[in-house]
Structures are given as structure tokens and as C-alpha cells.
């Protein structure tokens, strides 16, 4: 049986890397310069290809007029419909409903994302797969599984939730569930990536001590590794929830009854005071959530 790597000894004294010979230092500087110049050229190319002269940033006469009208309402958000008709529900109830649906969509997406992200996060950590014994075939299979988990996480993250939403809305139609699903995929991927990195940065000594007293692999990870990352993982999850709130609002642009839809319709009707009400509601929602989560985080971390 192969001896285990000398883990405890490895912690003993960090070995200092020998200084590279001066010729390789010079070569490094040369390479860095090359990369820097290359990036600068790329930036220049991007500007020329975008084909936007700076004059294009100055709005025309009508643009100025809209901007003036819009910003003029900034300090007087609507408390009632600008163009009321009988049979509408009261304006502030409509705003509250928009907020409520935004929160529901974000919560639905995050619930899925947390469930999937936690499992994938654990399976995406190298600590989950290390030091397992078994026949060679089984070990190879584990490597393949590990790689697939990592690839799956990367793929989930690589497509933005709004693109997933477009795909799902086309496939399943306009349902809150398809929107929550769209939201949950990249969020689960991001949570999984961050969780697995946190797990791999945790010191291993507690987990190894639990292994030494006969704990199973599952218990070793859950009790030795997870508690250390929990406060940061919770804090990060709250931050992602805040992002999900904004994303859920934007999904209203596709017709879901979140703040985004109200905002879009009010904008098209040129009801700028109503637009401001929705914007303030969105900001207030995020700020209140942030205050609440900060309180929770403090309780967790102290």
C-alpha cells in the first residue's frame, strides 16, 4: 500500500523557492511587457471596432427633452396613477405586489440554487475526492466524475440568467417556474464554485483529526470542513440573494409580473413619476434586505 504523503511534515516549514537565475528574470520582464502591450492594442482595437465616436454620446434635442422630463420627477415619485382609470387596484398596492412578486421569484430561484449549489459545491471541492481508496478502475471513475462536476459548474455559470430566461420562456412559456429555473442555473453554478473554493482553502487538520478517531468520510467533511466555511458561505449566499432580487426585477422586462414589468410599462406610457416610484421601491427593497442580512451575518460570524 502506498504511504500517505507526509502531510504533518509538510506543514512544518514552508520551503522557500530558490531565486531564479537573473537571465530568467529578464525573460519574465520581457514577457510581461509583451502581454501588457498586447492588451493595450486589444483595447485600442475594441474602441475602433465599436464604431462609436464620442459625439454619439451627446443626446439630440428629443433626448434632452425626455431626460429633462424624467429627472424632473425624481423628487416627486407617484403615489397614485398618473392616469387613473376606474377598476384599477390602488397604485401603492400595485407597487407592493410588484415588490412581492420580485421577492417570490428571487426566493424561488435562490432556493433551487442553494440546494443544487451546496451539493455541487461539496462535490466540486478536491477535499471531497482526495485520499479515497479502492481499485484502480473506481479511482479513475472518480476522477472522471470530479472533472464532470467541475465542467458542469463552469457551464452553468457561463450563460447569464437572462439568456436562460429567453431559452426557457421559448421552451415552457411565460411561467414563474421557468423564470425561477432560469435564475437558479447560473446562481447554483456560482454558489457551487465559490463554496468549493472555500472548502478547499479550509485547513484540513480538524477533518483529519476526525478521520483519525474513526469518523466516516461523510462525517469528516460535514463536521471537520463545513463548519469553517459556513459563516462566509452564508454571507456570500445573502449577497447572491441581493443580486437575485435585481435580476428578478429585470426579468419583468420579459413580461413576468415583477417590478421590471411595471417599470417598463410606466416608461412606455411616459409616466415618469411612476417609474421613479418603482425605482425607489427596488432600491428600498435591496437596502432593507441588505440591512436584514447584515444583522444575520453579524450573529453568524461573531
Amino acid at each position, binding site marked *: *500500500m*502506498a*504511504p*500517505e*504523503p*507526509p502531510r*504533518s*511534515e509538510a*506543514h*512544518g*516549514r514552508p520551503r522557500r523557492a530558490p531565486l531564479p537565475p537573473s537571465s530568467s528574470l529578464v525573460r519574465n520582464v520581457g514577457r510581461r511587457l509583451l502581454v501588457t502591450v498586447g492588451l493595450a492594442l486589444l483595447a485600442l482595437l475594441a474602441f475602433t471596432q465599436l464604431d462609436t465616436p464620442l459625439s454619439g454620446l451627446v443626446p439630440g434635442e428629443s433626448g434632452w427633452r425626455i431626460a429633462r422630463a424624467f429627472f424632473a420627477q425624481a423628487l416627486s415619485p407617484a403615489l397614485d396613477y398618473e392616469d387613473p382609470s376606474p377598476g384599477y387596484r390602488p397604485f401603492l398596492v400595485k407597487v407592493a405586489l410588484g415588490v412581492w412578486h420580485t421577492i417570490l421569484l428571487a426566493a424561488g430561484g435562490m432556493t433551487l440554487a442553494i440546494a443544487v449549489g451546496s451539493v455541487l459545491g461539496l462535490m466540486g471541492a478536491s477535499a471531497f475526492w482526495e485520499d479515497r*481508496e479502492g481499485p484502480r478502475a473506481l479511482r479513475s471513475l472518480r476522477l472522471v466524475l470530479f472533472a464532470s462536476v467541475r465542467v458542469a459548474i463552469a457551464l452553468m455559470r457561463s450563460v447569464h440568467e437572462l439568456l436562460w430566461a429567453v431559452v426557457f420562456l421559448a421552451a415552457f412559456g411565460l411561467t414563474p417556474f421557468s423564470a425561477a429555473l432560469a435564475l437558479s442555473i447560473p446562481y447554483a453554478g456560482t454558489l457551487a464554485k465559490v463554496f468549493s473554493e472555500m472548502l478547499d482553502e479550509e485547513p484540513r*487538520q*480538524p477533518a*483529519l*483529526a*476526525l*478521520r*483519525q*478517531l*474513526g*469518523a*466516516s468520510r*461523510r*462525517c469528516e467533511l*460535514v*463536521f*471537520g470542513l463545513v*463548519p*469553517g466555511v*459556513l*459563516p462566509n458561505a452564508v454571507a456570500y449566499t445573502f449577497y447572491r440573494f441581493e443580486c437575485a432580487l435585481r435580476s428578478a426585477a429585470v426579468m419583468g422586462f420579459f413580461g413576468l409580473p415583477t417590478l421590471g414589468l411595471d417599470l417598463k410599462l410606466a416608461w412606455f406610457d411616459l409616466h415618469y413619476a411612476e417609474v421613479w416610484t418603482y425605482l425607489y421601491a427596488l432600491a428600498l427593497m435591496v437596502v432593507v434586505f441588505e440591512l436584514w442580512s447584515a444583522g444575520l451575518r453579524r450573529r453568524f460570524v461573531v
Partner: protein
Amino acid sequence: MDHTDDHLALEARALGVTFGSKTVLRGVDLAVRPGEQLALVGPSGSGKTTLLRALGGALHPTVGSVAIDGRDPASLDQRQLRAVRRSIGFVHQHLGLVPLLRVNHNVALGRLGERSLVGGLRSVFAPSRSEVHEIHRLLERVGIEEKLFERTDTLSGGQQQRVAIARALHQRPRILLADEPVASVDPARARAVIDLLTELAREEGLTLVVSIHSLELARASFDRLVGLRAGEVVFDRPTAAVDTRDFERLYQLDDTELLSDGA
């Protein structure tokens, strides 16, 4: 009982451990009877930690063999190895406590070896009254009962040391191995920690092997000393029979050792 005389709690036969090209232990023979207490002494880098890890079944020797209660851990499957490890309490030099858990949780984890995931979660989130009492008694025994519900990382190094000892005892082991248990404890308290270990082991009838780099402490508290140097046993004698020449041999530095320091 007569047959227990030839039954050994721990045994190393021609034990050798090599990490890559570095030989850490070479030809180590050691026999420890049940209930016996001994100290491994030697300079840092002499292989004490590696020997303890091998004796505890935490690493498999490159050559030779280890027997724990007569069973060679290298020949066991995962399930049997876990069973053997449950019978050994190990107080690590780095303690290996979970910093963010409370003291009572860390001590409860001592029994994680006999628990499933669900059982472990229950022992943390909804512990039985009797286990909390047991843990409280243990903490009383190691002298920090007032810390029962404190978060472990708020305790001093010496207090955490006691938590680690309590966890090892909660495990109800037959053998207790302690790796440099006083390395991070101030000298005034070191004696108290060693006395605590030897007393507890005596009360519970545990076999105790402790590695210490302080000769004074080892001599004062143990009847048998095993000297290790550069991975080899230099002496293995009752403390009374260990003389100053032995110690000189243990700690003298020669040129070759200075060159290969850090083994």
C-alpha cells in the same frame, strides 16, 4: 489474567517510513503493554510524530509493520480500520479542533466514529441530556467546565489543549496517543497537562504514549522513556536506567546532522 501478559497494546516491528527520498523512521522496534505509560523523547525532526501516526494507524509504514491490539492496520479494510481508530484517542499537536464549534460540540465529536451522519448531527443540534452531562463531567475533570458552551476558538491555547484531551476521552478509547501535547502550552502549565494525561490514563486504564521534547518533563512523569534520533531508537529503558550519556547521545549535533537538518 495471564494471557494479557503476552498481549501487546501497541507493537512496531522493524518499522521504516520513507517520504519520497527521505527516510523518517528506520528499523524501529517497540512493544507497549496494555495500561503502560511511556514517553517518546528526542529532538524535533527525530521522527516522533511519524512514529505516533504509524502507531495510531494514521499512516502505513514503508517497511516493517505495526500491530494495534494485535491487528496490523495495513491489512484491514476501511471499515475495520475505522473500528481500530475508534479505539485510539489521538491528541494532535495542532489539536485538530473545529474552531467555530462550541466546546461541547467539539467534545461530542469524539464519538463521531461510532455515529452516522444523522447521529452526528443529532449529537450537535439535539444532544441527549445524558451526553451533555457526560461532557460536562469530562470538562470538570480537565478543569474548564465553565467553558462548556463557549466557542472553541475564543479559548486560550492551553484551554483548547484540554478540550482536545476531553474529546479524546469522550471517545472512550483503550489507547491514548498525544503528540507534543505541551508544545503550545507555557512551561508553567506544561507539567499540569502532562500530569493530567497520566492521571486520566491511569484512572481509565488506558495505554498512554506521549511524545515530548522536554526531557525534564518526560523524566518526571514517565517510568519508561524511548529516545529517538534521526528516525532510530537510541534507547528504550526504564527512566531510572536512563543516564546522562543517553541524553547526550540523543541531543548531540554532528556535522552530518546539521547538513541534513529538517528531516
